[in-house]
């Protein structure tokens, strides 16, 4: 209720609101203008960090994937890279390329997910349906590669779970060509739509200085003109051998953030093509693990292209120490900090997801905007509440 003399109305947007996601935005509005907005997160906290302390190292792989369902490869890869740093092993070349392949497929469908949600937030149900529909071919590619649609758990210490299926290259090429055609439709109907431009251009402008200062990450950072990408800063997997550009935009508004995602999809398709062309022959599991598998099983494993876990994985012991890994996921940089004391579970595992680092933008970008801009900004951040809550 508003009492007389008060100008501001407190709006509780979420957690039960069509466009809030699993979080609450506490907005103070004066007329149609937002005076202050505070995100209230934690509704889908699943205490990954604490659970990791009681689970064995290999059991944590599915655990870290769950919070960011649309972008599981980033978490999977970052966690395994931290483990590998502690174990002191380096995966074979072919496994690195396969990791890159999955990471890029995942980046595309994660971006499409974000673009679709953003579309429906400003009222374009068509953008939503198109993006979610066009995710499907990429999910199917990933499924063919890993056996799962979203929760791949594909990357394991020392390699990957499955080899490249025969003929995936051609099918991937077909999917990429389909997507390139569709991109034209997207531009005609959505990105160049005057209403879309009116809603997104100049809305929620994040300056370069603020983006750096607030530690923003991912496409949101690059849309403000900062050319930072972990794939360049600290190259991992097969990225050092591949050609790709870091996509940046200068405007820093909602539309720039959308455009960065769109252009990154194109860039990712370029990487996928290179991976398929360049992928070397060889084992997909580190030799020290491969030789632990009984010879007979090893043969059938090679024939079927599927890894049989060596028994040492069941009770994987990691030497004491600390390791930090970072990976550029679809939404931004995933950081894992693992402290090991030589036991079967990490002593402490810190997992920082891109959404958690970007949550600060809600209060920063929404001062003085209109109520209708809240979803336009929210969607452009590609913010995913479970990922922030972990």
């Amino acid at each position, binding site marked *: 209720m508003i009492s007389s003399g008060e100008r501001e109305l407190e709006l509780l947007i979420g957690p039960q609101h069509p466009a809030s996601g699993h979080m609450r935005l506490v907005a103070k509005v004066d007329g149609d203008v937002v005076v202050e907005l505070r995100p209230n*997160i*934690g509704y889908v*906290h699943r*205490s990954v*960090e*604490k*659970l990791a*302390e*009681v689970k064995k190292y290999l059991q944590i792989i599915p655990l870290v994937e769950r919070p960011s369902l649309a972008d599981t490869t980033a978490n999977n890869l970052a966690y395994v890279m931290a483990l590998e740093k502690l174990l002191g092993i380096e995966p074979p070349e072919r496994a690195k390329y396969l990791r890159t392949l999955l990471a890029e497929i995942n980046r595309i469908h994660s971006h499409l997910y974000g673009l679709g949600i953003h579309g429906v937030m400003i009222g374009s149900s068509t953008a939503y349906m198109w993006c979610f529909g066009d995710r499907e071919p990429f999910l199917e590619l990933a499924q063919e590669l890993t056996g799962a649609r979203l929760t791949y758990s594909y990357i394991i210490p020392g390699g990957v779970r499955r080899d490249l299926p025969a003929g995936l290259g051609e099918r991937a090429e077909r999917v990429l060509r389909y997507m390139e055609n569709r991109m034209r439709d997207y531009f005609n109907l959505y990105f160049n739509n005057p209403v879309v431009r009116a809603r997104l251009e100049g809305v929620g402008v994040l300056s370069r200085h603020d983006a*750096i*200062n*607030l*530690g923003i990450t991912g496409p949101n*950072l690059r849309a403000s003109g*900062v*050319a*930072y990408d972990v794939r*360049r*800063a*600290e190259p991992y997997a097969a990225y050092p051998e591949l050609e790709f550009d870091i996509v940046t935009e200068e405007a820093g508004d909602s539309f720039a953030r959308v455009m960065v995602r769109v252009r990154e999809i194109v860039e990712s398709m370029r990487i996928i093509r290179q991976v398929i062309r360049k992928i070397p022959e060889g084992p997909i599991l580190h030799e020290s693990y491969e030789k632990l598998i009984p010879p007979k099983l090893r043969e059938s494993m090679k024939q079927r292209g599927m890894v049989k876990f060596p028994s040492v994985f069941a009770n994987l012991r990691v030497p004491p120490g600390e390791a*930090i890994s*970072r990976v550029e996921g679809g939404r931004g*940089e995933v*950081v894992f*900090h693992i*402290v090991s004391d030589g036991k079967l579970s990490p*002593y*402490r595992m*810190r997992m*920082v997801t891109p959404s*958690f*680092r970007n*949550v*600060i933008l809600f209060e920063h970008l929404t001062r003085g905007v209109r109520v209708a801009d809240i979803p336009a900004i929210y969607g452009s951040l590609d913010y995913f509440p479970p990922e922030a*809550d972990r």
Partner: protein
Amino acid sequence: MRLDDLRKEIEEKLNGLGAEVSSKDPNLIEVRVGRDKLVEAASKLREMGLDHVKAVTGIDYPKERFEVVYITSSYSDSLSHFLVNLRVSLPYDDPRIPSLVRVWPSVLYQEQEEKDLLGIEFEGNPRMEERLLLPDSYDGIPPLRKEFKVRVEGIDA
């Protein structure tokens, strides 16, 4: 820039703050300072161009100490390859630490989370009175402390 050069530069910058600087290949630098010199050391690192914090990790060593690690880095081309850990030890019965939110605004929510889940007080952080991930009414042991035992169900029990 090479790792050793950066280490030397940091050593020079933090001269007189009692900081221990070590490095680990390929790109990690560890800086350990005392709690009272933390803000000063952080400001110096920030001046060097380490412009954001990637993660704030609080570690609980029961009955012994807490450790807080600020994993910092930069978005500039020359420094983005390196990670600099700023590490502080806190006595177990007095887990208070000056907040770095004025040096690095990016730690706002991360410090609040560590307070929420680990019970470390970051003095000066404006969000210390509010819960972040836990329900507002929670008043048990901070869940990330070792004395908080996870109840296991199912086949692992």
